[in-house]
């Protein structure tokens, strides 16, 4: 599983941790090799911290999450295949820690995806949910971040991976351990909600003028 980005299931499943720990011999791998690993890993610190901040919405919790992510990465560094996608590997670790620590378990049975397929494209052209480009430009960055942070976690994390971090659907699917179709439907719903909340904000802030303003 998750071969493409080198995410070992052993890293992601808490129950498997002891198996990996047995194979892990601290001390034997110190030196140049682990320094390379550490150097590459710490190169993603800002990226991971930003992601953690968006996930937890709390600087102190974001710090804890990032620190725990690095601790786990260091402990399971043998399961990382050199030359594969370390950013995805780190995000996978962080994302699973987030759900375990902060949300009390994996998000398997969340009903958010329930009617995703049926309604996927039906409301796509709802004009009231679609801010114009120039309206988007006048919305403050803080407000956009707030809109992202208001998304349900399952939708927020896919936006972070695909839109902010530029992951392919395939890599995002591997990090999230869901099919690509699920990535696509969550992304679709997330963007729809973003459009809606930004449009609502624009209306409330008086940024929207013209027909909609006059009608109101």
């Amino acid at each position: 599983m998750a071969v493409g980005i080198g995410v070992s299931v052993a890293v992601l499943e808490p129950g498997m941790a002891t198996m990996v720990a047995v194979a892990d011999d601290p001390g034997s791998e110190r030196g140049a090799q682990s320094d390379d690993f550490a150097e590459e890993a710490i190169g993603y610190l800002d990226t991971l911290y930003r992601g953690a901040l968006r996930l937890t919405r709390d600087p102190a919790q974001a710090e804890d999450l990032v620190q725990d992510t690095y601790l786990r990465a260091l402990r399971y560094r043998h399961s990382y295949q050199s030359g594969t996608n370390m950013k995805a590997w780190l995000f996978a670790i962080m994302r699973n820690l987030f759900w375990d620590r902060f949300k009390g378990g994996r998000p398997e049975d969340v009903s958010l995806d329930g009617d995703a397929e049926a309604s996927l494209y039906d409301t796509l052209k709802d004009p009231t949910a679609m801010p114009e480009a120039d309206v988007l430009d006048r919305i403050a960055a803080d407000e956009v971040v707030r809109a992202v942070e208001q998304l349900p976690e399952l939708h927020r994390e896919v936006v972070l991976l695909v839109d902010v971090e530029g992951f392919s659907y395939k890599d995002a699917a591997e990090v999230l351990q869901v099919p690509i179709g699920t990535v696509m439907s969550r992304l679709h719903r997330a963007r729809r909600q973003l459009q809606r909340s930004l449009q609502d904000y624009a209306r409330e802030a008086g940024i929207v003028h013209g027909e909609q303003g006059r009608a109101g």
Partner: protein
Amino acid sequence: MNCRECEERLQSYVDRELSEQELLEVQRHLEACPPCENHFRLQLHLKRLVKVCCESGQAPAHLRAKLRQILF
């Protein structure tokens, strides 16, 4: 390609996830269909806006220092 078929592919188009063939078909439709073209521009705009707005900010210096101690 009609508008509905275009809509169904627009997200993947914006995310650069279409095959070469599908990409060309969507492109051809967008060139000929202002409503879909407009919709595409908004989607792309939103995607870029989210990226730009969420990408700023750095990890605190003390966290970096602590992690360097742990990692090296």
